[in-house]
């Protein structure tokens, strides 16, 4: 299937739809809905792999809870941070998790605005991933402080409550706003997108309690045209709000560093390079989660090789931006003529952490170049492994930026060394458990693929080929109205 051809706009505004997004014959609206809904309504379909993964996640979640308990009891000293390296795995993981979330928002908001219909099969779980990654990330800025119980002082509760505003010049405060806005909008966006599907589940289920629960979630959705019209408006508005967030959140996170005067931090390239890095890491995570799910639940015709291919292409693109950033950092270090900057670059090359730097370049710069090959992009094992590499690489990137910059800055007498402690790792692994529990829990209670959008996609494909028979389908799925192709309006 020629992607180039299908994605070419043919003169007037049209959804970018290709057969490859929903391959195979014999798809009909009912079948599509039932297959996705079955993951929620027929719990037996969940494979053994789900249990094992969830079990591991649950164990790790407990590791996280234990680590948090010990942290609160003992103090931040249980981590490996010190002076000069005041931040370590805590902030690395925060940035890493926040970055991972970005793919979800990009897929749901920006691809929606760009009418990339292929997003339909992956947007739901990517959005969920965003939320869960933000939840994991959110743990860190709170708990990395010396006195987490006072963290609410960062909120602008103002003179009436605290007698003092926070300090608005601090990037950490901007973080508070950026991340909380991001979490709120992402949650809203995700939930609004779920409403028609919740209604469908409400109508499909035979269990009374589930009917009530889904019914409450569906907010009285009846599939009326008015509902659809409002839904579309709301969804587009939220997408409009979300889209800049994709750029702003990681930009602001990058300010945590760029505003500082630490060599290795103080650079204007950070905002775009962080955003690209976030999308890069995000798509790596979508693939990491998507590839097994697709196999375990037989969703190969929904999350298709085309999806994998395209996501790999996005990874390649953003990876190149990031790689460009790395090269420019070296260039700036040299071109600035600033001895501290250049010493920082040399320290990355051959300082005590040289291994992490070269590993970063290998993981993020070299290995993903394999994706230039269509063969590799369509090889699931290869894509899966490259995604892992990118995840590791993006983690290393934050390691190189944070402790490696901090451990040797201006005054050689204060140079130090940062070694993550046991609890640093346990917290990190623990948040992975938290993420797995949330992700796999979500898979059992909510549809991981957007049911109505898939139907819409099917409608689009059929419509495109002129063999659309919408009426027949409507009789079967009275509760869901595949929308009229509003874009022709």
């Amino acid at each position, binding site marked *: 299937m020629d992607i180039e051809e299908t994605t070419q706009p043919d003169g007037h505004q049209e959804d970018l739809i290709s057969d490859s997004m929903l391959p195979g014959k014999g798809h009909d609206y009912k079948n599509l809905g039932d297959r996705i809904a079955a993951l929620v309504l027929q719990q037996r379909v969940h494979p053994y792999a789900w249990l094992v993964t969830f079990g591991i996640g649950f164990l790790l979640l407990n590791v996280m809870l234990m680590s948090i308990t010990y942290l609160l009891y003992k103090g931040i000293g249980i981590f*490996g941070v010190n002076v000069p390296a005041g931040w370590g795995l805590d902030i690395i993981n925060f940035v890493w998790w926040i970055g991972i979330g970005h793919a979800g928002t990009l897929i749901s908001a920006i691809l929606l605005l760009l009418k990339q219909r292929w997003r339909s099969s992956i947007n739901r779980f990517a959005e969920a991933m965003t939320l869960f990654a933000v939840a994991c990330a959110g743990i860190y800025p709170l708990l990395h402080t010396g006195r987490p119980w006072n963290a609410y002082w960062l909120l602008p509760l103002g003179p009436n409550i605290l007698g003092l505003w926070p*300090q608005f010049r*601090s*990037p950490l405060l901007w973080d508070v706003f950026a991340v909380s806005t991001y979490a709120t909008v992402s949650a809203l966006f995700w939930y609004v997108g779920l409403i028609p599907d919740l209604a469908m589940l409400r109508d499909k289920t035979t269990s009374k309690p589930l009917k009530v629960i889904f019914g409450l979630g569906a907010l009285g959705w009846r599939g009326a045209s008015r509902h659809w019209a409002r839904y579309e408006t709301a969804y587009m508005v939220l997408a409009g709000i979300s889209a800049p967030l994709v750029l702003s959140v990681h930009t602001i996170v990058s300010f945590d560093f760029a505003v*500082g005067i630490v060599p290795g931090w103080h650079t204007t390239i950070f905002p775009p390079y962080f955003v690209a890095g976030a999308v890069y890491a995000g798509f790596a995570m979508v693939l990491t989660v998507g590839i097994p799910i697709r196999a375990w639940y037989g969703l190969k015709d929904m999350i298709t090789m085309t999806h994998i291919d395209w996501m790999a292409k996005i990874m390649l693109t953003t990876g190149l931006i990031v790689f460009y950033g790395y090269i420019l950092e070296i260039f700036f270090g040299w071109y600035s003529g600033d001895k501290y900057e250049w010493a920082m670059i040399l320290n990355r090359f051959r300082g005590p952490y040289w291994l992490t730097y070269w590993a970063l370049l290998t993981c993020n710069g070299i290995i993903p170049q394999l994706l230039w090959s269509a063969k590799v992009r369509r090889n699931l094992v290869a894509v899966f492994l490259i995604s892992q590499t990118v995840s590791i690489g993006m983690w290393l990137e934050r390691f190189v930026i944070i402790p490696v910059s901090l451990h040797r800055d*201006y005054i050689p*007498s*204060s140079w130090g060394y940062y070694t993550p402690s046991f609890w640093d790792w346990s917290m990190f692994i623990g948040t992975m458990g938290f993420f797995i529990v949330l992700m796999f829990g979500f898979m059992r209670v909510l549809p991981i693929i957007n049911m109505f959008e898939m139907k819409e996609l099917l409608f689009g494909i059929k419509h495109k080929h002129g063999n659309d028979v919408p009426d027949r389908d409507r009789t079967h799925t009275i509760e869901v109205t595949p929308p009229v192709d509003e874009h022709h309006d």
Partner: protein
Amino acid sequence: MDINPKRPLDARTFRAKLEGQSGKQYWRSLEELADTPEFREFLFDEVPQHTRSFDIQGMDRRRFLTLAGASLALAGLSGCRWLPAKKVVPAAEQSEDRVISIANIYATSVIEHGLATGVWVTSNEGRPTRIEGNPEHPASLGSNSSTVQATLLDLYDPDRSQTVSNLGSISNWPAFLETMRSALAETKDGTGLRILTETVTSPTLTHQIKALLAKYPGAKWHQYEPCGRDNVVNGAKAAFGQPVNTLYDFSKADRILSLDADFLLSMPGHIRYSRDFAVKRRVRSEEISAEQPKKLEMSRFYMVESCPSITGTMADHRLPLRASQVEALARAVAGALGVDAGAAALPAGVPQPWFDAMIADLKTANGASIVLTGDHQPPAVHVLCHAINAALGNVGKTVNYTDPVESQPVDQLASLRQLVDDHKIDGAVKILLILGGNPVYNAPVDLEFGHLLDTTRLTAHLSMHEDETSARCQWHLPEAHALEAWSDARAYDGTLSIVQPLIAPLYEGAHSTLELVSALTGPMPNSYDLVYDYWTAQKPAPDFEKWWQKSLHDGVIKNSAFPTKAFPLNPAAAKATVTPAIDDKGLELLLLPDPTVRDGRFANNGWMQELPKPLTKLTWDNAALMSQATAEKLGLAPSIGGLTVADEKVVEFVIGGRKLKIPVLALPGHPDDAVTIHLGYGRTHVGKIGTGTGFNGYLLCTTAAPYFAGGMKATNTGDTYPLAHTRSHHSMEGRDILMEGTLAEFLLHPEFAKTEATTTPEIPVDDKQIEPAESGKGKRLSLYDAQDHEYKTDENAFAYSWGLSIDNNVCIGCNACVTACQNENNIPIVGKDQVQRGREMHWIRIDRYYRGPISNPHTFFEPVTCMHCENAPCEPVCPVAATVHSMEGLNQMVYNRCVGTRYCSNNCPYKVRRFNFYKYTAGQPDPDKLNGNNDSLVLQLLSNPDVTVRGRGVMEKCSYCVQRINHARTTAKKEGRAIKDGEVVTACQQSCPTQAIVFGDIADKTTLVSKLKALPTDYTMLGELNTRPRTSYLARLRNPNPNIEADVKNGPDTPVVE
């Protein structure tokens, strides 16, 4: 509870007692009346907190219930404690001189190695909280050293012994005194009684000991302390036929040659010597300017040393030389100066041109030079130095002789050996009373001092801790701290001081040496009476009371220093006194007192343990120091840079069949083929702090070679041991962080220190035209308006701008400021583990940099405080505004507001911020179990009430001693005036022996600090970052000999010996 039935009470005893009494004497019971040891024992057992612990495991139910019931009943009686009958002043009305929250300051002295250093001790509501130098005292002149200040922590050491113990069981003073007196009575004339003290200069104590010896003529008094001055005494005896005290006047010395003398840190009088030394090093001529360079004088200092010391870092020319080679050099110097010292070849390692130029230079000084040697160098070197000083015409000018300050100057090692030998030969020692000191730990091993204790009939040890010696003695007696008892002592120049206590003994069982010696012949006295009575007898004048009060008030007895005397030098001594050559095969071992824990007496002192050693920056341990080349020759590759936690190779050293395993550290500038081991570590009976720290160098110390010996072998054990450094990096990486140059360079370019990197950048002319300056400063470095902090407003008439100037040229890196800051600002210690993790808390640190070849580099010190930047990078990044700029330009840390994001620390280019990763302040941490698991109420007494104690999760840093500024402000406001220059003295400034630190108002151009900042050598650290720091530095200057300089290929400085 029956009393010991062995000795029934009888009516005769009572009657005899009552007959001796007159007036109102009450007695509570017949037993008390009898006042027998049994009664005292019985009485003692009644005091609940001293009861021996019961073995609960082995107790039956009935016994347990009995005790439980009794405890309950007795609990009700706990209010009935005797209060001391004496001197209780009920404060129904507050007396005028005691205002709560206003500290009182008393003058007293701290005694180290018998020598007094005059101090002022701050007392807050009766708690001594701070030790500062007494400006009137010649040994301190108001400055201080780390160890003097650290004695305060010893006072509150929770591990201090609190009760008398006998064979490990709790006992009491009456029981001990009874035992002692009866044993003494048995000896009749005291034969067999030996008293072992440390060095004694106290007239009262000497008087008491002499009185004891007069009463028991068979008794003998021995003195011993390790790292003592035997060589000085023996050298003086050889040169002058009698012990003399040598005083140096560095403030008059134009040329100094130190033959292995660490006179800035280790010698008696070193605080004063540092001050005097700085006088001749300081180049602070205000009139010098870039336009008119003027010839300036500066002393020239040659140093030859066997182990790099802070003194060596100050040298203009420094040569590493093994300790055993120094004598040959001294002989050559003497010979070159016309002393008949016998032939001596110049030792290998001293280049002939270097030597010739140095000799020529010494000769030009014309009686204004000093040649001196260290206490560990053999008597022959001391004799040679005496002869050299005489030949150079220094005697009476820069080198003065007086009578010895010790009451009985003896060869202490010989004195100790005699004690041991007497016992070995005929068991002559029956009763051994050890007053202070710790000979089991620190006597040369071949004496087997512990064996002496084991075989002596009665042994007792008075000391502040139950240490190694206490463990081998039958009796341990808790000693009162110097701040708890009266005494007196002489300073290094003989100046007398009365030592007055600041607090009653924290533990009732503690008594001073003075009291104990006196109690042997009479009732247990009060140390006040002893000292007072002694001086009443000495000064029977009508105005004695006035004299006494004045002496106490001043902390020093005026004009009591020994007068300078001329001692005839034996001209043959220089040639006649020769030290036999040592085994030159293998490695040479040098044993020196540790720069922080000294001879081991500060091993349980957290401040001293965590104080980075000036050169190695090592904490909590000692190591075998050697040169990089020697280490490589031995097949070791010890790290000299790299990580904060360095796992160093453990090497087993063998000398004379004695072995010691110790990690090796390469120390740049250490002479080759030699190993220095600092003493004072590896103690076995010490408190929580000292346990498990370091390795015991005394195990290699013998009477034959107490300081250095040859023929040591080393084998790599293959093990490693982690050492905790506060810093790991040696080089400045080519950055202009510490500016240094030679005097010649300075005269040519007075502003050599002001480089692009050390000054706030100027704006390009174009920008100025485009963007006219708004703030009047003519600079526009940023898009934002400059924060110019115009402090002076109508409302704020006395607008101060506080600033600090640190003179690197006279900073000797002695660490006094670090301890002062720790004391003043309630800075906790964190333990070895935390130092390894890079979490030490010192608010002021002394950076050390090397330049030049690793075999003999230049070493520089630079103390770093918070810079209080005008454009502080820490301020804008704090999300909760916990660090803010004050109206006086201070960068303030608001502890209560801090949530602990550590962003400020990350963004501080100077890395001066310190974070409470755990609850460090809960008390003195057990190095193994940190985090306030062992809160110590005793240690809380130490806290300075003017400074907040910081909790867990809070950032902290140097505040420029804001509490002191506020004190001065209160005083000034009450008097309706501005704060005067010099009125605010920061703790670091106050303690600095060389007055390298000056604090004051930089807005006022007439203050000293402003004048210093106006000097051409003034520079700011990382000025190019536009942080505009308030702390600035004066560049380090060296004054190398041009004749030596010309000879050297490796740069314009010290020759490289390779």
